[in-house]
């Protein structure tokens, strides 16, 4: 029998692999997991910074892929991008749920939060990710642009929430994000220039 009959799923392209997952093929699903779980887990840990929550999110994302693989458009979609967006959105949902639970059970001391040296989620994010390749690109952005992009994408804040939290006009938030994203586009996707 030819080698093709005992399919080596690691050799399959993303497009064929996701079609096989849509056909509910467990071996293909297993390969998809091996191929993408480290990236998605890295993303989940960056956003959530909580291994238990990141485990839950990763499992939910892959279960969602198993159930909805047939909704992925192999002609127009880019599988790693689709998976990243699924994972990021699920992480932000989990972040919001966790925040709601905290707000219910803990009375936040505003003065403590304002003290120098107190925990600052935004600064923590900046500090814990030193060494990432991502830093190379993000660090080259002016701090006020980088901070807003990270607040939106990795912490799930809307434009008006950012304006309120940082006490700056909404128009400033929009302009800084536009400028920062345009610079990232030019650096990360040189062909789009």
């Amino acid at each position: 029998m030819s080698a093709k009959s005992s399919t080596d799923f690691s050799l399959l392209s993303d497009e064929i692999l996701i079609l096989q997952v849509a056909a509910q093929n467990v071996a293909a699903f297993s390969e998809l997991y091996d191929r993408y779980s480290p990236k998605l887990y890295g993303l989940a840990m960056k956003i959530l910074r909580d291994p238990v929550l990141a485990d839950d999110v990763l499992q939910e994302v892959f279960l969602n892929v198993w159930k909805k693989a047939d909704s992925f458009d192999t002609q127009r979609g880019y599988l790693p991008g689709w998976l990243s967006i699924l994972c990021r959105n699920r992480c932000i949902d989990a972040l919001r749920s966790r925040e709601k639970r905290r707000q219910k059970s803990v009375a936040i001391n505003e003065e403590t939060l304002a003290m120098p040296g107190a925990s600052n989620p935004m600064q923590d994010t900046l500090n814990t990710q030193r060494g990432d390749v991502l830093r190379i690109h993000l660090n080259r952005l002016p701090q006020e642009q980088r901070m807003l992009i990270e607040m939106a994408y990795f912490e799930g804040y809307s434009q008006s929430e950012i304006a309120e939290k940082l006490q700056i006009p909404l128009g400033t938030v929009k302009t800084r994000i536009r400028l920062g994203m345009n610079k990232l586009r030019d650096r990360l996707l040189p062909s789009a220039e």
Partner: protein
Amino acid sequence: MVDINDSGRVAPINREMLEEQAALYALGALEGQEKSSFEMLLELQDPEAVELFAEMQAVTIAICEEIEPLTPTAAIKRNLLDIVEPTANPEKPPSRKASSKKATVTPIQTANRWKQFSLAATAIAAMLIMALGYFIYQLQTEISQLRSQVAISGKLIERLEGDLAEGNRLLTIACAPGLGILAFNGFEGTPDGARGNVLFTPELGRALVVVSEMPQAAEGKDYQVWMLEGSQPIDAGLLKVNSEGQATLNIDTIPEDVLSAFAVTVEPKGGSPLPTGDMLFLATVN
């Protein structure tokens, strides 16, 4: 290029504003009427909006791809496989254990050469039959895999053809002279975050109803769209919400008489001849 402001009026939009909206939308930070307007531009396949959004989304994907990978614990994969295996397609290739089975040949006990030959021939025949059976099984497995791929491709083509037809319908309305965009106003019972617009072209007698952030209709219920001629409601059809909370309804024949408004109500499954349930949206024609 136009934008719809908070009062539901159409206002011009420049390149910078569109870039801002695309960037904020890709980051998940755009909200309110701006989000609704930008989604409508994407729905209408506005080339500038589509291109900018694709670029900004590619930036967010590139950001994700540059994050350092981490290895999750093996328990997650085990859990996942335990969950998905019972729902898997039964037409799967034979397991490694099954394919490594070998035929066993009974030792020849007698000195009778004819009997030896006969036994050897039987064993060879048995091995050949087993090999042939295995070969046929493998072929059948490959055929069923190919069939499932063909079925999936067929579904894909069908969906793309549907998308194309829908795109053409949207384009016809979007390019029509005298196109108006009416913003839906919500009510107390309108689901949180739900919003929508009506693209309305009196000259062609056509309209497109677009809503987003809508939950699925409750069990035994449907969302129904109405055109109001004065206070007289005319059934325009049912609004089916997809898995992403979006729904569109293409209305091909708008009455020639004066049309005063479009509305969406909750009705019993299959719709009603006249509105009976709560009104979720109303857009008034000026």
